[in-house]
């Protein structure tokens, strides 16, 4: 009965899935450490910072290679604690609130994972994941799966446990965001979701639909929130949530191509999202702000950062031939494939996924315009000379990642898919025509054509003038320009969306805020009962005793 504590072997294992994830954990760790050398220079408590980073790497590898569920959960819990401590290195006022919120969500869902583990023990009597294959045919098994999935969702940032991601993205130091919420937590969360969905449990149709619902809602809702953000780190944070939707959707399809797509998307997402945060961090470091209203025109002073950011933006928007396209394409195929088993719901998922992709592109158009293109804000012009390209330690990781975005896109099939994904997911069959080479050539032709058109168009010279209205130069409005930060603010005025956005503003979708309200409601009731009067307290004791007498003797 008690041997789950005492086994001295078989705690760890390595299979294609875990070694592939483990490899990329190390890869992102190395890049983050290199980037941190530049970004964290001159900050306080660096020794502690690097100790935490190293512990995070160790704990992540522990999660990936653990075979014993409790061992996995220990590393998992330690990761949550480390994230809490790492967020503490952020410098703005809100950081202690964000750290608290993050850890309550992560640690709270970890507690539910414990319950899930207890259910698994009840059902099977073992914690070794390689020995488990539980059919989801009774209530307890379903609860067990949901409890474990909740942990994976919270770690990866899928709805409804997502609300810590945007907050963390905004307040934590950028390398920490790039490291944990953007790459490692995704890798691990989706790894765990894949592990329980593929190995530990035998999925059934209903549970797959559940996953696809979570995925689709996450994709669309998070990207809608991203559209209206003003802080680019927060905006990226919402995209980090939205993209998780594709991974969950992919795994939810339940067929090899979809699952492989979900896993591939997880990898790609980690690559381009880290790249975006790294490049964004460079902007933050040099321009001293993350507010889109105050940025603009940085392409002239930070061309390399712009290029890496641009490549990663196209990747995340699913533009061919970048890697985001390759994996989204596989997810779409998986969704279509899942429709073959009957039902028409797959159309909804497909539309959600494609809509999400389009909106992502839209939101990145705004972002690139507001940060790099457009006119610089007046406020910034004063300090313009100080803004330049960052040092090599901060540039190199972005460049490497941007290069991977392109490489994994063009050579998706022969490269990462064959090397990492296919060994982990057996039996992937592409249903469509897959010729990356041809696609690339076509796209290159397109780009050349575009360039030609652009050059022809720019032959006509434009003239620059002060902004004026009705013949008068407006001195009262110093920042008369289009910052781009408000491109999509009008979506908030559309019928149903207006209502949803208002609810979102009131944090009705933030499980943390809702939970807080409920908790303090109970708290208020209970406190009003504790009035400090001795006779009340004594009468409770007597009342309790009377009830006990009644139960036992009545």
């Amino acid at each position, binding site marked *: *009965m*008690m041997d*789950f*504590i*005492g086994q001295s072997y078989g705690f760890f294992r390595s299979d294609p899935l875990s070694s592939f994830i483990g490899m990329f954990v190390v890869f992102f760790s190395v890049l983050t450490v290199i980037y941190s050398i530049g970004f964290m220079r001159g900050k306080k408590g660096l020794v502690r910072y690097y100790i935490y980073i190293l512990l995070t790497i160790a704990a992540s590898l522990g999660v990936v290679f653990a075979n014993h569920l*409790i061992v996995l*959960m*220990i590393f*998992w*819990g*330690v990761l*949550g*604690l480390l994230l809490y401590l790492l967020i*503490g290195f952020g410098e703005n*006022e809100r*950081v*202690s*609130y964000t*750290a*608290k919120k993050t*850890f*309550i969500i992560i*640690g*709270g869902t*970890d*507690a*539910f994972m*414990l*319950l899930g*583990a*207890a*259910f698994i*023990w*009840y059902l099977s009597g073992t914690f070794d994941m390689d020995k488990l294959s539980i059919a989801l045919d009774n209530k*307890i098994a379903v*609860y067990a799966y949901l409890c474990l999935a909740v942990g994976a969702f919270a770690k990866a940032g899928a709805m409804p446990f997502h609300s810590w991601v945007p907050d963390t993205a905004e307040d934590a130091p950028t390398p920490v965001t790039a490291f944990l919420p953007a790459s490692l937590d995704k890798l691990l969360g989706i790894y765990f979701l894949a592990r329980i969905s593929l190995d530990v449990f035998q999925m059934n149709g209903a549970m797959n639909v559940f996953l696809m619902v979570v995925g689709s809602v996450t994709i669309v809702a998070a990207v809608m929130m991203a559209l209206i953000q003003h802080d680019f780190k927060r905006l990226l944070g919402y995209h980090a949530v939205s993209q998780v939707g594709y991974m969950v959707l992919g795994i939810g399809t339940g067929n090899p191509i979809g699952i492989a797509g979900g896993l591939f998307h997880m990898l790609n997402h980690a690559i381009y999202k880290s790249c975006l945060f790294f490049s964004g961090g460079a902007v933050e470091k040099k321009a001293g702000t993350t507010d889109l209203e105050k940025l603009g025109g940085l392409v002239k002073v930070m061309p390399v950062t712009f290029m890496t950011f641009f490549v990663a933006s196209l990747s995340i928007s699913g533009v061919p031939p970048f890697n985001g396209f390759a994996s989204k394409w596989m997810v779409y195929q998986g969704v279509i494939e899942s429709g073959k088993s009957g039902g028409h719901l797959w159309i909804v998922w497909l539309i959600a996924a494609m809509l999400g992709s389009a909106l992502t592109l839209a939101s990145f158009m705004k972002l690139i315009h507001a940060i790099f293109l457009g006119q610089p804000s007046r406020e910034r012009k004063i300090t313009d000379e100080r803004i330049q390209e960052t040092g090599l330690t901060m540039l190199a990781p972005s460049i490497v990642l941007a290069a991977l975005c392109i490489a994994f896109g063009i050579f998706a099939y022969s490269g990462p898919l064959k090397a990492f994904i296919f060994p982990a997911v057996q039996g992937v069959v592409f249903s469509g025509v897959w010729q990356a080479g041809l696609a690339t050539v076509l796209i290159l032709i397109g780009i050349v054509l575009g360039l030609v058109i652009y050059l022809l168009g720019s032959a006509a010279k434009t003239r620059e003038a002060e902004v004026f209205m009705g013949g008068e130069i407006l001195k009262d409005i110093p920042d008369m320009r289009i910052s781009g930060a408000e491109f999509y603010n009008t979506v908030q005025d559309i019928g149903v969306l207006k209502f949803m956005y208002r609810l979102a503003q009131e944090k009705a979708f933030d499980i943390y805020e809702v*939970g807080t309200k409920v*908790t*303090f409601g*109970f*708290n*208020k009731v*209970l*406190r009003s009962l*504790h009035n*400090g009067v*001795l006779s*009340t*307290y*004594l009468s*409770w*004791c007597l*009342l*309790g*005793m009377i009830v*006990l*007498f009644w*139960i*036992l*003797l009545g």
Partner: protein
Amino acid sequence: MQAVNIIPMFVIVPLAGAFLNSLVEKKAKWVPDAIGNLSAFILFFFSVLAVQVVRTHGTLVYSVGAWKLPLGIAMVLDGLTAFMLVTVNFIAFMIALYSINYMERFTAKGKFYTLFLLMLTGMNGVIVTGDIFNLFVFLEIASVASYALVAFGTEKHELEAAFKYAVMSTVGSMFVLLGIVLLYGLTSTLNMADMANMLAQKGAANLVLMVSVLFIMGLGLKAALVPFHAWLPDAHPSAPAPISAMLSGILIKSLGVYAMVRIFYNVIGMTAELSSIIMFLGTLSMVVGVFLAIGQWDLKRLLAYHSISQIGYVFLGIGLGTPLGILGGIFHLFNHSVFKSLLFLNSGAIEYSAGTRDLQKMGGLMSKMPVTGSTNLIASMSIAGIPPFNGFWSKLIIIIAAVQAQRFGYAFWAVVASVLTLASFMKVMKYAYFGRLKEGLMSIKEVPFFMKLSMVVLSVVCLIGGMLLIPSLRDIFLNRASDVIALGVNYAAIVLKEVSLSW
């Protein structure tokens, strides 16, 4: 020295220390510190020795004054006793160390140590005694000492809290006494083993059920089970910090949980109804306590409500009655002693340095008090059940045991309470230790050496406490205790065999 002679030491040493202290406390400033700490250390040493004794000799029975048992007063040393002795005396020793510096704030250090040692006498007495009336006497010794200690600051609110505590606790004691009297009337013996035998022979009677209710109420009040808990949030915060640590950390466990478990499992015998009642009350305490705790702004009051909640886990685990559940319950009892004492000591450190226990008046203390802050973080993680700290392991076992016993609802509430516990300790960390340093706190310093020492030792135990589950250690310490509980009324046979061997 015969091994059995170690048993009365647990009463003699603190009692002698208390009297000696009140005689010579005025001789020099360091005398009370020395006597208090030396006694506590000797007790801790003996308690570790007791574990070894149980390991080699099994259960031992000592007869006070060499009276023939079961007429005389018996003292019994078995696995559960040894486990409780280690828990109580380890925490008491740490608290004595801490008090060296902390109690400088009060004028009557000598009286403090006298009361401290008396309370320790009472607790150790409750644990080692094998006589049910003697148990009541020791219960009262510890309780009366604790009334005085709660009022130690002699401020208005402290006296008020001590008064409430004294009234409620006395009511509880009276019901316990009534229960003992009824049992005595039924069985004509006071020796617990003998009584268990008699009760088993007589079979179930309504009188026994009635006595059970009296014990649940009386001892449940000492253990702060909901709805008998209301004295605790007033009394525990009012005492000086080391005493709060002692009350929340070990007093409610030795007087409440231990006494209840010993009587219900080993004397009266556990029935399905009793076990359901205990589990239900445990879960109720768990949930009510945490919901009350999370809204508090007084740090010590928040911690006090968490004691109610955590005691709920202990009762849930032990109430399950399965070997795994009992193991989880007593392990949680040990862990809770460690981390809750530590948390109270941390709150005392803040009070010592920053002079407040209002969370809204603190902030950014991590930078000024790194040792207090880090140890508090470790203790918070422990109580919230974050791996790999000790609280995680015991909660894990309790939850697994609850699911195993098909008590899914209780397991669910245990998880919910755990989440809310985490949330409320995140609140403590945010308002007290992180965030911006408040204006008035710029010049505060970390606490003196002995306070730091005891906090660090306790936090190390939080960190490595999970190792007690390693099979070889578990066999010596935890399993021996849970085995005694799992024995149920067969305890009588073992003790009586030991009695007949020695005579």
